[in-house]
């Protein structure tokens, strides 16, 4: 059963993404694309002629996708949260190396920004994991989802997590890594056709990855988890529709000043 979930994780993420595009359009009072649009895009991309800049660059995108899938699978398998965060870091680094491996200004800028994003959200994710550990006594997700009451014990950590969700799903105000109007998609820029598809699907997996973190805050109650995810999903899109993109350094500063202190305060609260 778990393996089926893992296998269908990208599709699940695609549905979330499709839903989001519709939702965003409606918030802007547009009709918006069809719900299944991400899948249309996927199939179309498979059909395109593939132009690559050079082989390692193209293959690193594939590696990014699979490494990300691996980390999402680790979530479903209930592994140690810390491993999952670092596996995800591995996937991101692969992408960053890909960004650096072409001689293109935008790709490099995008990779730089991805790195800074990493610096911003990774500590928060680890602190969230530490929070879970302190409350539940284990880093293992399998253990964590058997417990409960996380929201009551670590509300500030939850807010800190909320602050980094826009970074991960590339939503305003923290969509600096993609920043279409500035760096035309950043690291994605040199990909086309099939290899771009891997990055496109990796985005679906990012959705699953970050919303899983939101989900496990509910602990044993799956209904609450679903409600949390839905709520956060709506909230993130509302914020996306109400903010401009901030600078990369602003983002890092905001995350460090606000989210980090919230997280630390919460951990102190648990500990003391």
């Amino acid at each position, binding site marked *: 059963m778990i393996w089926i979930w893992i296998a269908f994780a990208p599709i699940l993420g695609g549905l979330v993404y499709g839903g989001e595009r519709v939702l965003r359009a409606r918030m*802007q009072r547009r009709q918006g694309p069809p719900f299944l649009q991400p899948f249309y895009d996927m199939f179309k991309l498979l059909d395109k002629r593939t132009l690559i800049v050079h082989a390692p660059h193209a293959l690193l995108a594939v590696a990014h996708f699979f490494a990300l899938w691996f980390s999402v699978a680790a979530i479903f398998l209930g592994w140690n949260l810390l491993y999952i965060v670092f596996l995800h870091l591995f996937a991101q680094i692969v992408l960053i190396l890909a960004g650096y491996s072409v001689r293109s200004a935008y790709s490099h800028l995008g990779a730089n920004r991805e790195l800074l994003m990493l610096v911003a959200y990774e500590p928060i994710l680890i602190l969230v994991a530490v929070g879970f550990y302190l409350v539940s006594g284990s880093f293992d997700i399998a253990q964590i989802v058997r417990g409960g009451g996380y929201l009551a014990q670590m509300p500030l950590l939850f807010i800190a997590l909320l602050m980094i969700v826009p970074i991960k799903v590339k939503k305003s*105000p923290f969509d600096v890594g993609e920043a279409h*109007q500035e760096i035309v998609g950043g690291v994605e820029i040199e990909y086309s056709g099939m290899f771009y598809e891997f990055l496109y699907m990796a985005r679906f997996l990012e959705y699953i990855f970050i919303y899983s973190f939101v989900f496990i805050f509910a602990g044993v109650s799956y209904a609450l988890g679903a409600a949390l995810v839905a709520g956060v999903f709506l909230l993130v899109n509302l914020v996306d529709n*109400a903010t*401009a*993109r901030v600078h990369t350094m602003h983002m890092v500063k905001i995350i460090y000043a606000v989210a980090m202190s919230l997280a630390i305060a919460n951990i102190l609260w648990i500990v003391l």
Partner: protein
Amino acid sequence: MKKTIQIPLGSQHISLLEPIRFKFECENEKIIGVDADVGFVHRGVELACTRSFEFKQVGYVVARVCGLCAITHSLSYTLAAEKLLGYEANDRIKYLRMLMVELDRIHSHMLCLAHTAENAGFEALFMQIMADRELVMDLQEAISGNRVQFDFIAIGGVNRDLTPELTALIHKNLTLLSEKIDALIGLFNNNWSLSLKYKGVGVLRLEDAYTYNALGPLARAAGLATDVRVETSDFPYEDIGYTMILESTGDIHARNFVRLREIVNSIAMCRNIADNLPAGEILEKTKGKPKGEAVVRVEAPRGELFYLVRGNGGNMLERVRIKTPTFSGIPAMMEVFKSSEYADAPAILASFDPCMSCTAK
């Protein structure tokens, strides 16, 4: 011995509507040097106006110099030609011309605001302004028959008249629009992320505005009180409730605000015109051929548009000199880019509302 990174912006870039090529020398993402190439849209209109087109056609040709300020281009040319022909338009014509120019200003300013928002990464605001902008686009289409290229002004008058239905439509749409603009003013003032992105970014100081001869909304945002609408006597702007809008900070926020408040002012002027339209012919026959030299300045949405037309009494003109607002704005623009962040560059660029097709002709 830090090396710098060269970031291209253009000629094709998603944040650009028109081809302009910037090459930013950046340290990290901070711009320390700018190189600009503005000649992508050069078509040779000035020469064509004197070689291939007769003076009556030139009005339609120069309108195609720029889609956004089409009406001001044809208006400036027409005024110059009328001066050469010794013709003075009646009040109805003047009012109708002013109406279209102000409507054009509203739509151009709104486009600029939307584009600045888009380039600042605020997609929802872009959509909101574009939706509101459709109100004025519909109005223009109803009045002139086309959304962008109005071809409304001809030598000797205007091509179309205002019917009572149109007057009603103007009132209806502009009332709706002014509510939306009020909401926008609140939004631009209060949104936290917009203030990060706009306030204190891309500052053009007043001294620089003087030194680099900035003009139009850029200059007014820096506090330089210049507006061709008060510096020429071709149109009775004072009669229809013109006020000069000035801001002092000179950043993107100030430029946006100048535009927003000018939209409010233009809406009021348009409604005044629609209410108090004098009677008269809309198209009068003109006689003769242009002879002599005439200079015309008109306030386009981006600033002063300057035409110098010289004719020698023939069907063909001798010289049509077009000096467009963005052409004068570029030195100031390049100055402002320095020491700002690359991440702000698209928004700064859009806030200058550059019009390359004007610049390169």
